[in-house]
């Protein structure tokens, strides 16, 4: 409660007693180094916390490792002594043995474990769901994540943007089987259960991209059901929200898209589109993309090949719900639920035949001539939100 009220009042970084304590664990620095890995960037590591919840758990781990590790070593030493030493005890072995068993096996562990369990319970309580903050709804699908910002009217997929230094409420549910939401650098896991909504939360205390992955076996492509969480400084986050709230495709385009059906019309719409784009948006890069006839051809191919049956693009008549929303697909960092980076080459390969990249995924191959696929990809890449501050 105290924590959440603090958060409500100020967005300043909070003091973290947790971190100060972690400095006391110097003896484990070597092990820590080994565990932290020498490779530097760990994109999905629970020992590289970037938020208060993950940090509290990492802290808990170092305490557990210290205490239980020492006890383990003590047991090993005793075992070795037991085997290699000659018995100095005589007839009283039975009584001494009993004392040894009770002290070493019951009393000492109890003395160690009871405070440890109390400490862990305090950690559990400290990780209590805060009651403020932005709400994001996460719906698990086989095998991707539907992300919705209900208050902001934003829908996206496989990427979550959050403001640095603020707790974010998550509403988790599933459209099919059980999944589990896990971004280890921010918090532990929480299952996404079909038919019920679970409350969870994450918070990042520094900007960065944190990888997450489904942690409950959900079928064929469980291995390729990942997502990214990007924490942005508050002003950048606000800009992201604003950018996302604009319709992805210009309204005029969507009308055209609605009306176009025949090839002849496509040519017209291309013309109209490019003129429109030229006149309205002038020299901006985005405008250039819209201006391209290829993008317009791609848009019409997108509808002609039935992509809209499963995908939605805000502002167009593409409102399919079966697959991920594509409103700003051009700005997404990854494809196929964080399976591959979102490059032009990868997007081409994905649109042409996703089965080659993620076998068994629900999206069928696109049976279209290469140039049409190129065009669709151009159109998809053009779907980028405007980063105002850039």
């Amino acid at each position, binding site marked *: 409660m105290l924590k959440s009220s603090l958060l409500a009042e100020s967005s300043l970084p909070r003091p973290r007693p947790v971190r100060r304590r972690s400095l006391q664990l110097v003896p484990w620095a070597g092990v820590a180094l080994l565990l932290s890995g020498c490779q530097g960037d760990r994109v999905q590591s*629970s020992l590289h916390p970037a938020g208060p919840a993950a940090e509290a758990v990492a802290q808990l781990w170092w305490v557990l490792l210290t205490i239980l590790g020492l006890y383990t070593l003590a047991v090993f030493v005793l075992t070795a002594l037991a085997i290699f030493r000659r018995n100095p005890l005589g007839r009283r072995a039975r009584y001494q043995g009993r004392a040894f068993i009770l002290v070493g096996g019951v009393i000492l562990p109890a003395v160690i474990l009871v405070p440890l369990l109390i400490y862990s319970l305090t950690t559990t309580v400290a990780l209590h769901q805060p009651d403020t903050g932005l709400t994001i709804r996460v719906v698990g699908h086989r095998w991707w994540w539907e992300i919705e910002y209900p208050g902001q009217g934003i829908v996206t997929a496989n990427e979550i943007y959050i403001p640095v230094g603020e707790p974010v409420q998550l509403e988790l549910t599933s459209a099919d089987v059980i999944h589990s939401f896990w971004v280890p650098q921010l918090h532990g896991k929480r299952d996404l259960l079909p038919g019920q909504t679970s*409350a*969870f939360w994450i918070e990042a205390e520094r900007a960065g991209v944190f990888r997450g992955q489904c942690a409950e076996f959900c079928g064929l492509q469980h291995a390729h059901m990942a997502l990214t969480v990007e924490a942005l400084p508050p002003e950048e986050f606000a800009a992201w929200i604003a950018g996302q709230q604009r319709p992805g495709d210009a309204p005029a385009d969507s009308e055209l898209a609605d009306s176009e059906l025949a090839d002849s019309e496509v040519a017209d719409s291309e013309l109209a589109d490019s003129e429109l784009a030229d006149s309205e948006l002038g020299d901006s890069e985005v405008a250039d993309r819209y201006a391209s006839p290829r993008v317009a051809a791609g848009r019409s191919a997108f509808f002609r090949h039935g992509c809209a049956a499963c995908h939605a693009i805000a502002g167009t008549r593409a409102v399919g719900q079966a697959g991920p929303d594509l409103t700003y697909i051009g700005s997404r960092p990854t494809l196929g639920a964080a399976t591959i980076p979102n490059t032009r080459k990868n997007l081409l390969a994905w649109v042409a035949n996703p089965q080659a990249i993620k076998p068994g995924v629900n999206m069928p191959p696109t049976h279209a001539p290469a140039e049409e696929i190129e065009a669709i990809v151009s159109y998809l890449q053009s779907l980028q939100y405007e980063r105002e501050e850039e």
Partner: protein
Amino acid sequence: MKDVKEASEQLHQIWRKPSGFWGWFSVVNNRLLGVRFMVTAFAFFLIGGVLALLMRIQLTVPENTFLSPQTYNELFTMHGSTMMFLFAVPMLEGLAVYFLPIMLGSRDLAFPRLSAFGYWTYLFGGLVFYASFFVGDVPNAGWFAYTPLSASRYSGMGMDFWALGLSLVELSGIVAAVEIVVTVLKFRAPGMTLGRMPIFAWTMLAVGVMSLFAFTTLLVATLLLELDRTAGTQFFNPNRGGSNLLWQHLFWFFGHPEVYIIFLPATGIVSTIVGTYSRRLLGYTIITVAILVTAFVSFGLWAHHMYTTGLPELSLSFFAAASLMIALASGAQVFAWIASLWGRRPSLEPPLMFILGFLVIFVMGGMTGVMIAIVPFDWQVHDTYFIVAHFHYVLIGGAVFPLMGGLYYWIPKITGRMLNPLLGHASFWAAFVGFHATFFPMHLMGFWGMPRRVYTFPESLGIEGHNVLATIGAFVFGFAFLIFLFDLLVSLLVGERAGENPWNGDTLEWSISSPPPSYMFLAPPVVRGRHPCWHREPKGSEGDLAERASEVLWGQPTAWRGNLITEAVNATPQGIQYLPGPSYRPLLVSLGLLIAFLAVLTKLFLVTLVAAVFALGVLAKWLWPDRHVIAMLRSSELGRREGLPILVTGSRSTVWWGTICLLTILATALAALTYAYFYIRLYASEWPQTGLDPPALLGPAITYGTLLVSGAGLFWANRAFRGGKANAIQFAFTLVVLSGAAFLALAVYGLVQLPFSHRDHAYGSLFYLHSIFISLLTLAGLALVGSAQIRVWSEHEDREGSMKLQMQVTSLLWYFVVVAGVCTFTTLYLSPYVL
């Protein structure tokens, strides 16, 4: 008196295995079945190991394409299911089936035909699992089969193979449990009080009781799953009022004790071997208490597997306390072993090496176990490779290493030949080093973000090196078992003769030749301490009942298989138990069940019906008391000597104890069904679902009232039986049968009249299931009451011996049916008005 040679030849004639090819199928001797269990389980272990190696190859490098995702998912499902259900439990059961009677000083298990039945159902269950490979639809929803992934909407026929195969294996586990519990309680050598029993027997007793509860719960859970899949019920379908978490609760209520069902016998092996090598076992009482605490508390820990589903915080401190108890109980055992070994300079032979390897690995796995019992920590590592590392440390470290130690220790007793110590050391070091190389890096992989059950991983996680190491380690680990098999083969061919007691062991198996004779003991050994082979305690007084019983049974009986029955706690002789010889009935019943299950798979429900009727028919024949046997036993001279009756009744009889076990199983099943009802009720927004009215009370009250009438009738029948009033008995029995039949008719009529079907919603599914369960119980009870009535009618002069026993057993079961009826009535008809 006969000389030893003559006596042993006579005993061998009656105890030897049936000869010929067909004879192989009728074997009921515990030692032969024990070996079959162990060989079959080891074969499944090797298959499961090969599956694991294939998975390790796939995971060596990121984004590998050695296996398709489909194949990988099938392999890890089969690997887990094989190791848990087809290897670990049956292997330890096999060890118990072989050694428990010998350690206890008995000639066989309490129910020899039931052991054979257990083996056949286990084998058939395993074959059903693997038959899925030939159909090309292998189970792929994980060994834990979480719904709705395992529902028919998301999983193919493979999961039917899984559920049905598993049901057979569970059945095997349940009957083995009955077998073990009754044997430990009733077949101990005279003088072997509970306090003198070997620790291994203590662990098996605990595990037997646990299995009754745990396997029955799993059987109910898989039944519900299979009904959802084939009969269209809605137990686990959240769209129709069912609950996915119900499956998890039921599964882990089995699944957590399962870990200890595997681990406790392994600790029994450790205590045995540590005791032998240090020539003492300190802390016997502490170890026993630790075993019982572990067994009991393990049923309170199932939520450990469900932390990430978001459990109420209030319950967490309860689970923390339960975890603490387990940690302390395990700690006590570990320190007892260290204390026993302390300063005894044990010779480091292969059996002990594996036990020391166990100590190292298990302590590490135990520590990570304490960690993951802590909720927030578990939130991070749950379902990651940290968990994979943890449970392989506790299962391989905690069960496979002791088991290997146990095999090196006991194989000389089984085969009569020693294994090669050099090869034993080679096998140990390959296993120990390979194990750590495989599983230690997995802790780190888990921290760095590798979830479980992924067929591949991205390069960006930075765990390639660890995965390469794990794969190499896995092959080294696998190699250890090839060395063991080679060692075994060499030993069978040219191994040194073992003699009676190669390790100077203290338990009774070391008092007889290696391999043991078919009848095992010429006479029941009289036990006066915890270490019968080490200390020849002074003989008791001449009139001592234990000594006299041992004398009576010296080389006896020779016309039939007989074993001494002793009292459950003090092991004072109580009578002589007749044990049946070779029989095909266990195989035929198992075959009937197998065919019935396969027919469910292929949706040939008529065949299912026919096969089930066949199985029940053979079962009835099996259970029906054999007139000739009874006549033979009644005329036996043996029963008239020294007050050791042959046809015993009540708690003296193994049958009575077996019935108590059966009632425990049935009560557990009823409890699981009731739990399912109230769990779904608790989370339902309205009850009954979809705006139905609560069921009317008057009709059902009459229906279930007839059951009460039948209970009263049976009470009357018992009184008349004791009083010897032949007409009154028949009259009372007729009342029981008629009112029972009336209940059945009314219950079925009530079901037909229901305004909803079992497919409509979870409430409907539950309503039908409870009604059908009590109806089937009644039907089975009626069959028993009817047969008792017929037997009393045709042999009405006999009111002692087997007839009295049959009355007792029938009464126990029928009273249970009446109580179950009251419970069902309360659940289905009263609770909607109260809750």
